[in-house]
């Protein structure tokens, strides 16, 4: 039992370290407010992985969803979540907030 717990903890901390060790990539901040993304156009460098920080300032959760980027993630109210995207080819990649799809729209521009 203790061995199992040790294994789980080791794996967990190893994965956490793996995440933090690779913190060299560019970071981009995306804010959700009033069920809208700001900025609605997000420029990121093409050809490398980008760390997208999504800060949901609304009092309701939102789901960041992008078929183009192959990503989907629920961002609880008031919290900031990390989504790694790319490396992307140059181009436009649209995303939406699935829970408020009519207002929450944006596009990632890789160049």
């Amino acid at each position, binding site marked *: 039992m203790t061995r199992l717990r040790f294994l789980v903890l080791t794996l*967990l901390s190893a*994965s*956490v370290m*793996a*995440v*933090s060790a*690779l*913190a060299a990539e560019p970071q981009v901040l995306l804010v959700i407010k009033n069920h809208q993304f700001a900025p609605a156009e997000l420029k990121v460098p093409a050809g490398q*992985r980008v*760390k997208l*920080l999504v800060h949901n300032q609304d*009092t*309701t*959760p939102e*789901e960041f969803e992008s*078929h*183009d980027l*192959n*990503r*989907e*993630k*629920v*961002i*609880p*109210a*008031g*919290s*900031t*979540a*990390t*989504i*790694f995207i*790319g*490396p*992307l*080819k140059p181009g436009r990649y649209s995303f939406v907030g*699935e*829970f408020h*799809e009519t207002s929450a729209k944006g596009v990632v521009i890789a160049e």
Partner: protein
Amino acid sequence: MLGVAIIVFRETLEAALFVGIIAAATRRLHGRSAWLGAGVVLGAAGALILAAAAGHISAWADGVGQDLVNAAILGVALVMLIWHCVWVSNQGAQAAADARALGSAFGRGRRKPWALLVVVALSVLREGAETVLFVAGYASGSDQGSTLAGALVGVAGGTAVGLLLYAGLARVPVRQMFAVTNGLVQLFAASIASQLARALAQAGLFNAWGQTLWDSSGWLRMDSPVGTLAHALAGYEAQPTGLQLAFYALTLLLLLGGTRWVKAQQRAPVGPVS
């Protein structure tokens, strides 16, 4: 209300379909309603807890906590499904064939498909948590009555499709039942593997083959009714990444290869089975 209903329907669909498949596969198993119900209730209870803790989980591990939790849930579900498909269901099939018995794989067996119980609970847990989070968030804002009504309609819709699949499968002749439900479970497992691949990439743990391979959304959109169904049933992605495709294919290969291997192992000492 309709918007809420559609989102809740989408979130509910995958779990409902899986429960429908498992319910059909275990139709003849004594007491299966009880353990299937237990799986759903356990999953739903876990979903409430997971949703309540979502804010904390989200902040873990530098903002990728949710992906790690999802990956863990998907990983356990995948291992359970592979184990079940390769070993347990084949033993059942073998027993059924030996006895020249009609009935599904578990029909004759005394063993309970524990692995399936866990996977049912986990799929309700994962989809349920997102639904609870969404509905709770929505209900705190606007018109609560219509939000809850929409949520109920959505859950009812998802459940209805699950029941429809179950009813359809129940009409499949018992002889082919095992092959059909087993095939569906294998596709479900591959779909879980593909979602696992995305969770790992999203968390930044896996960086290889991250580009999407094609875009078939012109042919079948993800948010179309057929696309939604194909995604929930077989893990259809309009724009899959290489990693997702690799996980998907590897799971299918493992399941098919493993099944053959186990069958060959079983056949050897007993002699050929007619």
